[in-house]
């Protein structure tokens, strides 16, 4: 096993906000199954605030831990604040990741951004 921080392992063993969000206002699908990491992030938005968020992830310990952590970080946040959450913030909230796993935190950042973009796109059309 790679040497993960205690926080990564704890988050992985007890992930928060997992599953599918019915009637989501935005969905971000990032990653590639060929590479072994796929993250789907669902958000529900009211008055520009992310009131609910859930994730589904196919991937390793780090992918699942960062998915869970990023959903915790954005829940209750305004959209413009959520957009400021970088991969570094996610990794630091987990006391860091092994270097080969840093791309997982990038995926988490991209997942949230993709979900917000989807929401904004839908809002424009609607």
């Amino acid at each position, binding site marked *: *096993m790679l040497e993960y921080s205690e926080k990564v392992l704890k988050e992985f063993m007890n992930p928060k906000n997992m599953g599918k969000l019915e009637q989501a206002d935005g969905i971000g699908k990032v990653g590639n199954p060929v*590479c072994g990491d*796929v993250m789907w992030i669902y958000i529900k938005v009211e008055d520009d605030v992310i009131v609910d968020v859930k994730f589904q*992830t*196919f991937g*390793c310990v780090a992918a699942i831990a960062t998915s869970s952590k990023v959903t915790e970080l954005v829940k209750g946040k305004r959209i413009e604040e959520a957009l400021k959450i970088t991969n570094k913030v996610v990794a630091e909230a987990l006391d860091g990741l092994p270097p080969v796993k840093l791309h997982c935190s990038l995926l988490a950042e991209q997942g949230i951004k993709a979900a917000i973009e989807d929401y904004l796109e839908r809002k424009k059309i609607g």
Partner: protein
Amino acid sequence: MREIYLDYNATTPVDPGVVESMMPYLSEYFHNPSSLYTGSLRVRTNIESAREKVAALINSRPEEIIFTGGGSEADNMAIKGIAFSKADKGKHIITSSIEHHAVLHTCKFLEKMGYEVTYLPVDKYGFVDPDELKKSIRKDTILVSVMFANNEIGTIEPIKELAQIAHEHEVLFHTDAVQAVGKIPVDVEELEIDLLSMSAHKFYGPKGVGALYMRKGVKLTPLIHGGSQEKNRRAGTENVAGIIGMGKAAEIAIEEMQEEERKIKPLRDKLEEGILSRIPEVIVNGHPKKRLYNTLNVSIKFIEGESMLALLDAKGISASSGSACTSSSLEPSHVLLAIGIPHEIAHGSLRFSLGKYNTKEDIDTVLEVLPDIVERLRRLSPYWSHG
């Protein structure tokens, strides 16, 4: 929590009898076997006795055994040694696409030095096709190297047939038999093998010691130059305790091999049947029959291997995976890709390799714990829609 160890293809615990045999050579029998006093003679004699035991394990002559620093060194010595010594005859080597990295990376290195290497494809079970080998042999081919049994999926190659094809064309045949020796009968005479690599720690011996069998008359360029140890074929003061331990492990293997198969195979089969009946969407990799009796490799669809390993580890179960996420590369196992498993399914593979200290209770525990782990990860997976 008691560990349930199911990674015997990675390494085995050292047999207590082996430990006991080694201890004197780490204390009172410390002498350099190349010296001239009584203490040295004793060490030298016992190294030769270990050599006889290792030779007996594969039915070779003792003088055909060269002790090395492990299986990887034996592979390097065989392939580079033949490549260097036969460079004037040709620079073409044939191997398979599912070899251990000790062979594959050695071949890649030789390619950089101007050698040409053909990597034979394998079928869905992992078999090399003898006809493919026939077609690949050229006038300048100097070596064929195909592994005896695959470390990840356990498939046992048609070694005798491949060796005979090589010999029909006057080409030497090497096999990396690291996973086979000590587990199943290996007879270099009957199988017509010219060079064979083995490793002590795969059959309850210590780490850091292995051997290369080299048929009498075969010549190669040594990798390590220095003193005249191992008849000028591998310099350096002998790893005495390691060699003694390897000899003892060989002796035990000869005695216990049949009994081990009788004990381990039913446990492996129980694990395989149990997984297939309890977990949907699982593929068993490797040939159903022509496979090491201790090895089970499964691909569990829609989830990833490292996550499974972490949850198994939390329950005290040690196994391994072909997922890219368990290594520093981004590619999953080259063996699984070579047998045609798609990337996303290869990422979800688990290897259980059993050994002589496993019990029925170990298997029961895995069968109790694994379905829940799979269910839990599948509930998280965007690709699992059966829940």
